[in-house]
């Protein structure tokens, strides 16, 4: 076991990573609750946004243009997908809707591999200006990007919670999560509410894409499949509670990074989200034999 001082920097990086996972997870949960779609293309959309941002910056544009492009791209693609394929699949099983978003993932993945060739290319990276500054807490170096990562997670979770609770649109989304047909009967513009959820999720995908490209790596495969870590958090929350999603995401991020300095386990650290999600799901599912809930039928 290495000394505690070896673990200290990893707490910070773990919290930052967990914050971004939380942000992604909250986006996924809200969209799932509002539309019944588990958006598995979340990572791919963010990854492509980040790659576009990189290209924009390479072309000489100032950094913020790239970041805005990334978020706009992710939002437009997500909203476009939702408007185009949301209605025809609305009545289908949640599994079918989720697998359809895997189709979008594959399309984006293929395009990314085609346009930003990985083999023999230069290593790409996105650096935010916040990487350089920072401060020291109890002899641990913290940079501002890490602060943004965690803060974004906290802010988005709290803001989304308040939004769902206190605004008209949020109430409509919660109503749709309970029953789409009855909500429509009550005069809620179902399509518009869904479009808002898609748009919000897309914006979060773009933000997560930029942050993860900086915190982890700017690489199509890595970023596309990092969504799996957020998915694990979402699964632990049973696709329901954004508070549990937040907590689970933070735990996944911190545990993943804390394992890094332990030599015997470091190669297995990427298993953290899978193992935690598997344990949580299997423990939770022990009590249900036949599900009566509508969304699983």
């Amino acid at each position, binding site marked *: 076991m290495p000394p505690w001082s070896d673990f200290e920097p990893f707490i910070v990086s773990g919290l930052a990573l967990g914050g971004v996972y939380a942000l992604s997870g909250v986006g996924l949960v809200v969209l799932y609750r509002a539309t019944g779609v*588990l958006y598995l293309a979340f990572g791919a959309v963010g990854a492509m946004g980040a790659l576009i941002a990189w290209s924009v910056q390479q072309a000489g544009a100032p950094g913020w243009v790239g970041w805005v492009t990334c978020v706009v791209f992710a939002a437009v693609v997500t909203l476009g997908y939702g408007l185009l*394929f949301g209605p*025809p*699949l609305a009545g*289908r*099983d*949640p*599994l*079918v809707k*989720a*697998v*359809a978003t*895997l*189709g*979008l*993932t*594959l*399309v*984006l*993945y*293929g*395009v990314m*591999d*085609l346009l930003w060739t990985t083999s023999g290319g230069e290593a790409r990276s996105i650096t935010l200006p916040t990487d350089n500054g920072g401060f020291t807490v109890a002899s641990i170096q913290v940079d501002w990007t890490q602060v943004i990562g965690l803060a974004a997670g906290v802010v988005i979770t709290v803001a989304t919670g308040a939004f769902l609770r206190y605004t008209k649109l949020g109430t409509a989304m919660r109503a749709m999560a309970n029953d789409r047909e009855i909500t429509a009967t009550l005069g809620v513009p179902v399509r518009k509410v869904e479009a808002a959820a898609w748009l919000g999720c897309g914006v979060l995908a773009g933000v997560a894409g930029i942050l993860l490209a900086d915190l982890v790596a700017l690489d199509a*495969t890595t970023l*596309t*499949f990092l969504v*799996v870590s957020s*998915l*694990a958090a979402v*699964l632990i929350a049973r*696709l329901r509670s954004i508070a549990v999603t937040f907590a689970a995401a933070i735990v996944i991020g911190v545990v993943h990074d804390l394992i890094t300095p332990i030599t015997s386990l470091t*190669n*297995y650290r*990427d*298993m953290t*989200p*899978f*193992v935690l*999600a*598997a344990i949580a*799901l*299997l423990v939770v*599912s*022990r009590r*249900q*034999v*036949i*599900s009566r809930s509508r969304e*699983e039928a």
Partner: protein
Amino acid sequence: MRIRAAVIVALLLFVLFGIPQLFSLYYVDSMTEVAVYSIVALGLGVLVGRVGLVSLGQVAVLAIGAWAAARLLFATTQPYPVVLIEAGLITMVAGMVIGLPALRLRGLYLALITLMLAGAITVVLDTINFPNGGRGFLGYNGSAVTPPPIRLPSIAANDKAYFQYSVVVAIVMFLLVFVHTRTRPGRAWAAIRQSEPTALATGINVTLYKLWALALASFITGVAGGLLAGASHYLYSIDFPAQNSIILLAVVLMGGAYSMWGAVVAALLYQFLPALLQNWGVSADWLTILFGLGVVQVLTTAPAGLADQVPRDLARLGRLLRRRLARARPMGPMGPVGPAAAGGDPQ
């Protein structure tokens, strides 16, 4: 029925004896992979199409089979069929140990947990590597400069013979699944797919038959892994990336998860098309894009996949042409009577 059987036999004879003679070694190797992946696709088809369990981790299961077979082939001198069966059984046990708790989940949750487990298996394989003739339980020698290739069966020591060998094994696996679908398990699976509570109410042991499907799918995928070990000579963990499980699900849905022909179509899409495109100098990324579009298309318009859609569309085209011809000839007193009701899409 008799014509159908004759067509199948003729097709198989052509595949077994025609392809090795007519095609270059490049395509024969690619067709060997098609034979292997048709078994994998068949296993996934059993899960998705028969029982309604969507697995996003079949490539990881395939990797387990390939690992077990490679380890056995290096460690023992057992005949090849024995190794294949053992690899299948090991994979079956692994699949059931992992699957039994997961079977409590259903639908979306089950699909996601398979994605998680596949990710975990991929991480483990990245660390322990595939056997390359080294010592110890893992059989990996990290310092081997020229590791020995995985041995081939003595009766099929060259690539063309190994292709025929793979096709024969694939036929056996297809027959195994065919027998299952035509007997009690097949009927139980159909009932479970329709409605789990109803199946339970009619006295079907839902857990048993779900586990049975999982065991069958894992077994044949393990055998396919054994074939793949021989076909590729050397195995590396990067050959089994997690995204391939997604692509595999995509091609199985495109090919058609409900029919056994769908598995063959899926394997051709997954392995033969890339080989063809590579030969033409087209990037395989176009295929990934195509598969992505294909999944969305299949899910929105043709749930039974290409194996169902193409013959139906061809039949529809045939009817249309016949009607056009009938209209061109001015002899019929009745004339065409609008769109035939029989051509209606069941969807």
